[in-house]
């Protein structure tokens, strides 16, 4: 490791807040994109299931 201790890695000679904030927000945004992908997949699957139910109801009534 470049830094002598974990404390120095955290502090980064005063630049720690800037660096860790940047990486923290980036991690949140990338995780957010993956969660949004999961939300889209689930809502699409719910629509597919609704279409299947509708089709079954139509075949029963006809």
């Amino acid at each position, binding site marked *: *490791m*470049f*830094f002598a201790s974990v404390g120095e*890695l955290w502090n*980064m*000679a*005063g*630049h*720690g807040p*800037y*660096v860790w*904030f*940047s*990486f923290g*927000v*980036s991690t949140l*945004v*990338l995780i*957010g*994109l*993956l969660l*949004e*992908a*999961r939300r*889209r*997949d689930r*809502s*699409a*699957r719910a*629509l*597919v*299931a609704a*279409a*299947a139910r509708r*089709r079954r109801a139509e075949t029963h009534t006809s």
Partner: protein
Amino acid sequence: MANWQWFHKWGSPRWFYQFSGRLLPWLAVPALLLLIGGCIWGLAFVPADFKQGNSFRIIYIHVPAAAVAMGGYVLMAVAAAVHLIWRMKLAAIVMLSAAPIGAALTFLALLTGAVWGKPTWGTWWVWDARITSVLILFFLYLGLIALYQAFENRDAAARACAVLAIVGVVNIPIIYWSVEWWYSLHQPASIKFIGESSIHPSMLRPLMATLTGMYLFFGWVLLLFVRADILERERNTRWVQELLSSERSGE
């Protein structure tokens, strides 16, 4: 005409859904490994910059976010052109799926740039050519999303978005060469396609890792978005109904 078969195959949502399903792990695993590994490498093991100190470590997320935000826009514009010229629906889905991902990455590039600017230039923001043109990129992405939602008719919306995406691509070379064409606080490109890069190899290697990782991450999330959109649009087709009922019975 046999040469065009691949084109029709690629245009088939069903074929694309099956093909992209096999591709997903090959994007997801290396994306996560390269992003996480490259960030740890760049944060803890690379020596500090002799001018900027430790703030330069923001490069390992700022440059990949900015580069992929621009690359994603070019991909979106190419998909837009394919949709307009050949009326390929899948191309419209790719275009519309790329916009929110590109917007998120442009937001990251702007935010991490501002946070990097404060300890380096002494200011969060300057209205210079590079930063302003990236802000315009952000608005182009948001504008495309808003434009799509403004239409009732999906096909008309996709065509209008495609025109906006293609017109907006003029901004990409402006962003890229802005640091050369105008006076700017922003440093010029450290990685050059021609000639020697002005960044030390020990600093460059983790950057190549996070840059490659970010491109793969973009591809991964793009495929996930496209697949969800395909399922939604094709929900009344037999292949989607059969696919999901076989998945449910397999659980």
